[in-house]
């Protein structure tokens, strides 16, 4: 055996959490598990300088700039602060979607202006129509039961890539992950159209209490977390547990098994507000398993009408005994309450708990600002969430607060694009003409390039509606820094620039508009390597990059010739393919990952 002995780097003397638990008051059983990744990757801050606000806004309130987006942002005001404020106001108040206010998306969605129809047939169906057609009935013309989720996935990618209302798509993705369901199992695959439209998108600028009620009563979630079958004689705790742990209070406020009576009080002497079951009484700092069981009893009878697929309350299946929830063990729900009151009071309590505000705020700050948002920002946003709990635009207010914070405009690169965001931002940077839909020849078959794209996307570990556990995809760099994910993104970026619209290999008819954009800027088709690189850097990165990296890109383009030598794009197909490879190379650089 080798004789060298490494000196262990780890010398820790930690009091175990169990010893801490032996005291009278419980300590939280855990920290939020996703904080672990954050700390480990805290060294992974970018070395970049702060870019213009346009770059920050378009990358973190959206999926990266398309050509013209930065100019449009800069036209919004006389200085950067004015522009950002105007952009925030614009994006926070999206109009009712229409072809007039979102033409680039709707011409593809509707198959107008020469674009092929995507062939969607389920996005306009009601929940009952979805249910009776795809779940209990016979789907049309052999269409599979997962047709609805396939269409939502394609439509979402189309919106991310083409919609002007980028923040709406960022938030839809955020809330889909927050209230995650795996989209490709029985009951979710047929109903995801309604979940996306009537639950997630209908409430994401609105009120959180209303949103969690819509989630609790959604057919999709009722099945995904089994509450549809939870009855007085057999409560199923799956939904109740994940509601506490994932949807509202978060694992950071979980005190494990143990008595409700020894959970400490929320610091600062907070009391439950009027109108809630324990009004005026102190708020416990968190929950224990007993709270989960009591909540599971409260939601018994919340189920689905098997004929219509719509939420229904089965009073005969409800547990009518008294309950004690987040009340130090004191009964705060009397027996025999009116129908659905027990469950609704649980939602009232959870939505009003300050821990929920902090939990949601931390996740929103993590999405919009950085992997490790400062506690000061999280706490302020969380306290606003709690203070505005009755406001009809509560969630919009919280998002606005985060976007208008100093941290939002002074933070860069402390997040990376996750693989879906990577792909979409590449499509946007190169004005892709991508067809997210089904083929005209066979309405059951996803368009070939899109089918391949989704396959390649799945290899990264990130694909829409494909997260099986209820926690949603991770939102921190540690989860997306694996050898494989990086490599799959290298492969994707290069693959994207190689897809052609037609199968005629003699034309340069590629889906990503690399050459056409250059021809428009250089009608002579005579362009130097310097010019090509400097044409594409602002489009791909939105900002200058490290000069040494630029020099490498020029070397790649010049291939030993002078960077000022004019290359003839008309006559040389090898130069044309090299230009496309240049853009593919740019997609592989760490600077393209920064958000």
């Amino acid at each position, binding site marked *: 055996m080798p004789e060298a002995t490494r000196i262990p780097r780890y010398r820790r003397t930690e009091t175990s959490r169990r010893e801490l638990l032996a005291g009278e008051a419980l300590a939280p059983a855990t920290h939020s598990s996703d904080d672990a990744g954050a700390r480990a990757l805290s060294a992974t801050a970018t070395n970049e300088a702060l870019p213009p606000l346009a770059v920050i806004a378009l990358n973190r309130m959206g999926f990266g700039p398309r050509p013209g987006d930065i100019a449009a942002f800069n036209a919004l005001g006389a200085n950067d602060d004015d522009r950002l404020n105007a952009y925030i106001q614009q994006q926070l108040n999206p109009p009712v979607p229409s072809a007039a206010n979102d033409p680039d998306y709707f011409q593809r969605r509707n198959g107008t202006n020469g674009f092929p129809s995507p062939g969607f047939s389920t996005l306009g169906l009601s929940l009952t129509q979805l249910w009776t057609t795809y779940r209990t009935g016979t789907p049309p013309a052999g269409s599979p039961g997962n047709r609805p989720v396939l269409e939502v996935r394609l439509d979402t990618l189309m919106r991310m890539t083409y919609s002007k209302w980028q923040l709406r798509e960022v938030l839809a993705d955020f809330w889909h992950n927050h209230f995650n369901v795996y989209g490709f199992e029985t009951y979710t695959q047929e109903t995801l159209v309604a979940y996306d439209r009537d639950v997630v998108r209908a409430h994401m600028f609105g009120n959180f209490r209303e949103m969690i009620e819509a989630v609790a009563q959604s057919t999709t979630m009722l099945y995904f977390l089994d509450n549809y079958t939870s009855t007085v004689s057999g409560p199923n705790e799956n939904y109740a547990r994940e509601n506490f742990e994932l949807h509202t209070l978060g694992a950071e406020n979980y005190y494990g098994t143990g008595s409700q009576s020894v959970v400490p009080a929320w610091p600062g002497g907070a009391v439950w507000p009027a109108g809630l079951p324990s009004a005026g009484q102190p708020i416990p700092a968190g929950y224990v*398993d007993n709270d989960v069981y009591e909540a599971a009893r409260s939601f018994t009878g919340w189920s689905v009408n098997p004929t219509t697929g719509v939420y229904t309350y089965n009073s005969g299946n409800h547990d009518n005994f008294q309950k004690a929830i987040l009340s130090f063990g004191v009964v705060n729900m009397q027996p025999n309450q009116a129908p659905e009151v027990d469950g609704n009071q649980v939602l009232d309590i959870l939505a009003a708990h300050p821990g929920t505000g902090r939990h949601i705020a931390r996740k929103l700050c993590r999405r919009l600002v950085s992997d490790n948002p400062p506690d000061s920002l999280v706490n302020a946003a969380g306290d606003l969430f709690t203070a505005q709990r009755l406001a009809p635009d509560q969630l919009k207010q919280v998002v606005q607060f985060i976007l208008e914070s100093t941290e939002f405009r002074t933070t860069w690169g402390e997040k990376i694009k996750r693989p879906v965001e990577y792909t979409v931002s590449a499509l946007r940077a190169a004005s892709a003409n991508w067809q997210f839909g089904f083929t005209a020849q066979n309405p059951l078959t996803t368009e070939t390039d899109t089918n391949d794209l989704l396959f390649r996307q799945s290899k990264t570990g990130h694909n829409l509606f494909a997260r099986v556990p209820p926690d949603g995809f991770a939102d921190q760099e540690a989860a997306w820094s694996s050898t494989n994910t990086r490599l799959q993104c290298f492969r994707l970026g290069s693959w994207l620039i190689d897809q052609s619209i037609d199968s005629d290999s003699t034309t340069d008819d590629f889906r990503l508009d690399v050459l056409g954009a250059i021809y428009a800027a250089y009608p002579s088709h005579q362009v130097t390597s310097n010019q090509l690189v400097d044409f594409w850097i602002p489009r791909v990165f939105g900002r200058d990059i490290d000069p040494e990296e630029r020099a490498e890109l020029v070397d790649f383009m010049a291939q030993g010739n002078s960077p000022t030598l004019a290359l003839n794009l008309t006559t040389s197909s090898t130069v044309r393919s090299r230009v496309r490879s240049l853009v593919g190379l740019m997609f592989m650089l760490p600077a393209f990952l920064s958000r």
Partner: protein
Amino acid sequence: MYSPSRRGFMMGCSAAIANLATARFTNMVFADPLLVQNHDTLIVLFLRGGMDSLSFVMPTAGADRGFYETARPQLKIPASGTNAALPLGAWGANQFGLHPAATHLHGLYQSGHVAFVHAAGLDTSSRSHFDNQAQIELGTPGDGSTNDGWLTRHFLTSPGLPADTPLVQRIAVSSTIQSSWLADTNVVAFANRDDFLFNTGPSSWRDAQKTSLRNILELQQATNPRYASGLVSLDASGFIEQNVPTLSSYVPANGAVYPTGSFGDSLKVSAQLIKLDMGLRAATLDLGGWDTHNGQGTANDGQYFWEKIQELSQALAAFYLDLDGTGGNAYAKRTTVAVMSEFGRRFEENTDQGTDHGHGGVITLVGGPVVGGMHGTWPGLANGQLFDHADLAITTDFRRVLSEILVSRMDNPNWQQVFPGYAGYTPLGVVRPVLFEDGFESGSTGTWSSTAP
């Protein structure tokens, strides 16, 4: 003999390394008998979702059989007759059996290559999937905020490693990395060779593009992990392209048949890498789908849990068979699979023919180094013996099992560093210690209490 230059294949090195890989590493992968002989491989398989250990290994006779049948009227595995449990023999005051779908695994058990450490797991008060998975993989019960994974710390504190890190020393057979590897910059996440090649985009410029990418990533390699990790990806891709044949050409030994699908493939890839003798020491694998709150489908052929167990059992047995060679090919003797989950499930089934989140589970070990049989201490299933009056109690901390593997098989006595704050380690006797030429057992801590054959 082993080429020093190949041993010098470090991740994060320069373009010259990639050229070396292309030029020289091919056909050298079977080279070094020392490397073959002098280390074990540990496969850590995590069953995500909370595997119902009491449907996997359950009492079939004795006082606890009665409690079991009462608690599991729908889900119970019969002790005799059709679809009866496969006998594991007596353990303490009870007889135990294995799920009837695990016939392949049962065969291995009978030949002494399977150990079940029952009533084992993470002994905190949490019933959360995500916190429990994190705390097990970080190796710090009660603390989910640890900065690095337990396998990360194992490799940082392991005294016997070669001075340079071979590229396939540690892998996550997965598209993303497990938390066990948190903060390990050298773990390679790798699922399938054919998907792992730098082979997209205009073909005439691929090599030039790769060179330019490498040049750019090297610019901030030392100061920015995003650059360094990009280089690891590039190096790993080149190395695997050169040295790992496509999986479809891989022929398992001894007629081993892996179940079709990504899980069977992940074990097959692991066997392929082990047999390429490239220095693989640890791999992490996942099998999800164990969160069976509803319609668990335990006791009948074709049902959900039945098929999960069948897949698990077939894959583990195929893996063992595939590695079970002689002489220089006696890989099974140096490979241990540790199968665990974040918790076992509630003792009483719910009325949806499912089970809710519970506590104690079973750690299953498979491999040549394993001391076959039932291990640990059975806590009993009477109500007063249950954790929180609801779940199987935990009598063996998961860290005790993993520490023993590290000390006895992986040449790392520093279990205190791998599991900071843990003080309870003495070997349970679940694996045989490696015996070296000098006659000393691997690891010098703890007392060996097993009567290893």
